[in-house]
């Protein structure tokens, strides 16, 4: 049965978000994004082949092992299209054909999916390794979320213990997640574990990836990339969003004026400002009196009297009692 002719469960083209758990790749190159891709030979059926692009890009790094936990597609379908050199470096754990091990062939890993995760860590050689989980949604539907989170964190730790080197360079766990299948709870929980979160949307022609990168003890960075996927499964990065889907650009965002939406008026007109400046305040003394008051004088023995006549005082040196009506 040719793998391409069988239609898979149709998935919407803008629904996959990918997570990269535990430790990110050392280099964040632009072509490390995976996206649902329509294979060129099927034409009208837009099949999603996310992990293949994943694996292809992972394998560009020389000598790096890639382990795949495949739950959603069969192994033949997954490996089709890769040349033999890449296929020989893929280690595939098949959970698609017989997830519950009914056939009892003895090949399956013990312990169910959780046991498989642990076994994957034990079987990896020390050195840079990428583990791709296709998909985390499949695991979340069958395992408790807390147990899955603990297993994901344990993977990187075990690998670091065995490898002996810094964990950051050793293990990269890549998890695929179907965003529309889960509520905010599991999404939030997995998101808090992930160091990089890539949210994909769009179609094969124009797709966007929102990347949130959270390194420990640093500010998270958020960026958006637009790209399209070429028939040979490589990525073509585009500069900005395609023109027809761009909203009207807003070049000058007006500065938020905090005094603009109040029920009282905080602004002063020119006349009001002049009137305010020319107002004499009751305790506004001359500057020499201010300075004298600020710096305490030689002591209480000498006291000075400051007299500043205001506009209503009428000083007549000859007759100080002239204004009295005596």
């Amino acid at each position, binding site marked *: 049965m040719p793998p391409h002719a069988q239609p898979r469960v149709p998935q919407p083209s803008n629904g996959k978000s990918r997570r990269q758990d535990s430790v990110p790749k050392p280099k964040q190159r632009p072509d490390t994004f995976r996206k649902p891709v329509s294979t060129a030979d099927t034409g009208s059926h837009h099949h999603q082949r996310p992990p293949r692009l994943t694996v292809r890009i992972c394998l560009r790094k020389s000598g790096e092992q890639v382990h795949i936990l495949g739950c959603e597609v069969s192994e033949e379908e997954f490996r089709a299209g890769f040349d033999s050199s890449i296929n020989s470096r893929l280690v595939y754990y098949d959970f698609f054909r017989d997830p519950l091990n009914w056939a009892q062939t003895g090949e399956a890993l013990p312990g169910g999916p959780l046991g498989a995760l642990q076994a994957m860590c034990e079987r990896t050689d020390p050195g840079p390794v990428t583990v791709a989980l296709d998909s985390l949604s499949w695991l979340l539907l069958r395992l408790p979320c807390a147990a899955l989170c603990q297993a994901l964190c344990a993977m990187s730790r075990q690998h670091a213990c065995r490898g002996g080197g810094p964990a950051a360079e050793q293990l990269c766990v890549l998890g695929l997640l179907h965003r529309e299948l889960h509520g905010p*709870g599991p999404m939030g929980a997995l998101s808090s574990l992930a160091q990089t979160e890539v949210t994909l949307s769009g179609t094969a022609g124009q797709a966007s990836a929102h990347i949130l990168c959270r390194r420990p003890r640093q500010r998270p960075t958020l960026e958006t990339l637009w790209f399209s996927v070429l028939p040979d499964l490589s990525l073509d990065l585009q500069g900005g969003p395609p023109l027809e889907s761009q909203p009207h650009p807003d070049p000058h965002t007006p500065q938020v004026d*905090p005094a603009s939406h109040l029920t009282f008026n905080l602004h002063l007109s020119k006349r009001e400002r002049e009137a305010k400046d020319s107002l004499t305040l009751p305790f506004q003394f001359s500057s020499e009196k201010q300075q004298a008051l600020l710096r305490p004088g030689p002591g209480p023995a000498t006291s000075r009297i400051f007299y500043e006549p205001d506009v209503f005082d009428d000083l007549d040196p000859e007759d100080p009692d002239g204004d009295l009506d005596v």
Partner: protein
Amino acid sequence: MAAVATCGTGAGSTGSMVAAGSKNNVTSFQRRGPRASGSDSSYSRLVSIAGTRPSVRNGQLLVSTGLPALDQLLGGGLAVGTVLLIEEDKYNIYSSLLFKYFLAEGIINGHTLLVASAKEDPADILQELPAPLLDDNVKKDFDEDACNHKTAESNIKMKIAWRYQLLPKMEAGPVSSSRFGHYYDASKKMPQELIEASKWHGFFFPEKSSSTLNIEPCSLTHGYIKLLQFIQNTIYEEGFDGSNPQKKQKNILRIGIQNLGSPLWGDDICCTENGNSHSLTKFLYVLRGLLRTSLSACMITMPTHLIQNKAIISRVTNLSDTVVGLESFIGSERETNPLYKDYHGLIHIRQIPRLNNLIYDVSDVKDLAFKLKRKLFTIEGWRGRSFPNLKI
């Protein structure tokens, strides 16, 4: 008891000792002298625990949280025997910084530490602690910061409040190691010899957990049971609850629990709404009982933004003593809002306890914002652009 109370004690544990000491006497006034009972002599030892001071309000024994600004907001510090709950910000940057300040303060003061985490190894957490700022360096930085901050404003001579022109602009200053509350440099790490000289116990849940047990509903999850047992054993063996009369100096146990309630502890309140909603609340209840009967203070960081059932958050708030929420502006629309441009986030004081007291000890400023400068974490009252900032 009134005469004895001038030593400034009032915590629950000492209260029980007072009751035990005075029940043989007719009156509660006790003479301080060679005739005094054994519990009296312990008061003078209790007061002189390093890194503590009595509260000015009610004599409650306080320890510093590691951040002098937060100490002021909480009424002088964190009371011994209580729980401080920090609601984490979205990306867990500033809450982990506060956690590290708390532990670093314990190391500087010589307290015993108990660090519990399900995500990071406690040994790694201790390696990342910030370095304390020494006096002369801090003084220079404070003066620099004061100059930068005030150059724009000092040129305006005050017209109405001219009597305040000569008052010093900056009141908070650096502290020496003998004082309460220290400043830390977040860009440098604590010297290795200080960490090695300190006494600490680590609880890393993935190492301690055995195979998964079957848990009945409404009971504690496995991780919480283990953690409570660990804390209880530490308190008992080290004598923090007064069970073994210690010949040596009494000390404070600082407990730090990171990311409590996250799925890594085995709790699913962050994943579903209808999970085991009583596990975390039971844990906090038992923990508070352990703390009240021992000389310890606890700081917990919890990712409350992930908890799906909002009723749990209010129960958790009720079961904790002091609750502080952090909200950072990263990634939100407030980051570009010019009103918030000077700050990195908001601090919400959700709850302050009434310990041996009838009234709260809240600060007057309710809108608080924080910013992490290159070395210091400052908290200021935020009033927006039109009004001057209140520096507290």
